[in-house]
């Protein structure tokens, strides 16, 4: 291995379970003259290298093989084929409560976890005050952990993990623990560890965290390596595939079904359909940052309504509400009766990489709700190259003018 490469994975295949069983099965199949059973690979043909001090994100859908890959790197399970070389002290932050005993106190468990992670008693004792302070458990630190809430347990595990000296950290979906201040603190600590030259492999479903923390990203799908490269490029690619997947999912459930399900019941105004169009009036579900977007709503009003307040809300798929906007001040130009449609134009879409859903709400001027629904349209956004030069990550593009 060249001097600065600490992880090298070549032609890695992984199949779960004793290799003996599938071997016997395929031998039996061959004896009966049937074609050999194709093994079920959890990982196939994975190849990558990680340099010292680098942070590599691993993303993909459930079952893509992310955790399997970390397990192989942590030497918890052997590869079926291929080679895996890891240089340095590896610390798997895969599940932080591994080995914790509910009957023991927080302090006793810290000692145990430390030993499990390869520290000597003296090393842990030296770290103990720091760990105790970091987990902020106060008097609970000397109580049996069965009395802890799940958040407190996670904090205890995480505090030990963050205070272990290791060269390579394997992090699997652990930043989602604890309350918001603890999450913030953990994220900061991770960033400090990165800056201090530790190599980090980071698996997460929170694409925003991956984008923020990682230099490079590995995208897996059904055990295969789809792409590896610069974080924002791979994340864009992920959003594009995620988009088709989510849209397929919506289509499979039937657009109508989605609307009926999410629509306000017994409404005065039924929303029949919501279409998204581009500047050329073509229906679309995928836009670029800065594109013109036309929202067209088909409705049926069971009673005529004059001067309604119409509002749109945009959420990320992970349920973060980004912004809402309404026709306030223009209500008088609108009247809804019978079947019909109305439009709203967003001249320049300010959203960055992501998948978004659109909510609609129609209110009377006296604030009573007339109709609406959630998730009536789903669309994805990717950042085109020229914009990527000006913003790197986040949710929205803020247009700015520069001067002296």
């Amino acid at each position, binding site marked *: 291995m060249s001097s600065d490469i600490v992880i090298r994975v070549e032609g890695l295949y992984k199949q*779960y*379970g*004793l*290799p003996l069983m599938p071997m016997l099965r395929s031998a039996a199949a061959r004896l009966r003259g049937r074609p050999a059973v194709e093994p079920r690979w959890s990982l196939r043909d994975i190849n990558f290298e990680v340099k010292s001090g680098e942070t590599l994100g691993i993303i993909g859908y459930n079952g893509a093989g992310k955790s399997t890959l970390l*397990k192989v790197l*942590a*030497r*918890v*399970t*052997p590869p079926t084929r291929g080679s895996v070389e890891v240089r340095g002290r590896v610390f*798997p932050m*895969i*599940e932080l*409560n*591994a*080995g*914790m*005993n*509910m*009957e*023991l106190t927080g302090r*006793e468990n810290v*000692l*145990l976890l430390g*030993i*499990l*992670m*390869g520290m*000597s*008693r003296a090393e842990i004792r030296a770290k103990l005050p720091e760990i105790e302070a970091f987990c902020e458990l106060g008097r609970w630190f000397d109580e*049996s952990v069965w009395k802890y809430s799940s958040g407190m347990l996670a904090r205890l595990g995480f505090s030990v993990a963050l205070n272990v000296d290791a060269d390579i950290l394997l992090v699997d979906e652990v930043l989602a623990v604890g309350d918001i201040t603890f999450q913030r603190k953990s994220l900061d600590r991770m960033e400090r560890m990165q800056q201090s030259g530790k190599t980090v492999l980071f698996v997460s479903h929170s694409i925003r965290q991956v984008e923020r923390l990682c230099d490079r990203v590995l995208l897996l799908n059904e055990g295969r390596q789809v792409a590896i490269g610069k974080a924002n490029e791979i994340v864009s690619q992920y959003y594009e595939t995620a988009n088709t997947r989510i849209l397929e999912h919506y289509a499979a459930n039937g657009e109508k079904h989605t609307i009926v399900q999410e629509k306000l019941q017994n409404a005065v105004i039924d929303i029949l359909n919501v279409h998204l169009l581009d500047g050329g009036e073509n229906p679309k579900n995928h836009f670029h940052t800065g594109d013109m977007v036309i929202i067209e709503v088909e409705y049926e009003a069971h009673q005529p309504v004059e001067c309604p307040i119409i509002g749109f809300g945009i959420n990320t798929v992970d349920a973060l509400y980004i912004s809402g906007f309404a026709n306030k001040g223009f209500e008088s130009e609108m009247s809804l009766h019978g079947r019909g449609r109305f439009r709203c134009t967003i001249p320049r879409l300010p959203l960055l990489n992501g998948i978004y859903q659109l909510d609609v709400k129609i209110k009377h001027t006296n604030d009573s709700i007339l109709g609406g629904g959630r998730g009536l349209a789903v669309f994805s956004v990717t950042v085109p190259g020229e914009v990527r030069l000006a913003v790197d990550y986040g949710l929205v593009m803020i247009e700015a003018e520069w001067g002296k």
Partner: protein
Amino acid sequence: MTTGFTDETRRFLRLLWAITGRDIRARYRRTILGPLWAILQPLMLMVVFTALSGVLDIPSDNIPYVIFSYSALTPWTFFANSVSRCGPSIISNASIIKKTPVSRELFPMVAVTTAGFDTLMAGIILAVMMVWYQVSVDLSLVFWLPVLTLLTAVFALGVGMFFAALGVYKRDLLQVNAFVLQLWIYATPVIYPLSEVPDKWQALYKLNPMVGLLEGFRSVLARGETPDVSLLLWGLPVNGLVLLIAWPLFRYTSRYFADVL
């Protein structure tokens, strides 16, 4: 390379000590009597055996029946507990096995050490009884007791690892394990003396390593003699063979434990 080996060993022993401590401490944490339970259990058993010997007339080679049975039952319990805890110790430590690359041998060994702790407690009761019945002991006990204990531990580890190696994959084996131990006690001179076994069966009977070991314990603890070494040697091939098969088997299958837990 040698320093790497000793580091590894030191780490392993540290883990063995820590996990054993965890299991023993956790067991008595939410009890009122605490570690007293470790003494109470063998004490109850002693009472039962004393009562039994008053009612039944079981041949016991002219040794008080309580001493006769207890001196063999204690090491037998050590063996049986060690073996039966091996498989479950892998399963109950699944969270460690799935997340860290610690040697999988650790868990069968913890099974043996925690059973060893219980045996130590039972040993205290036995010692008190030996004083009460004024059993005379030979000084060679200082040598033989650790040797016999170690041999029993090694045999228990072999049998336990064998069942754990396969039982983690097919849990039927763990059921079979319990069943085997139940039968095994009748093929071992725990509640009856070796002299009661018919001559034509003796050769086959003595192949069971537990025969030589338990008779050894009985010689040392109840009769104040040195163990019958030839009897110990009879059992040695099976003891060695089990370990020779079980350990590599465990080494191999345990690499994939994380995949099936």
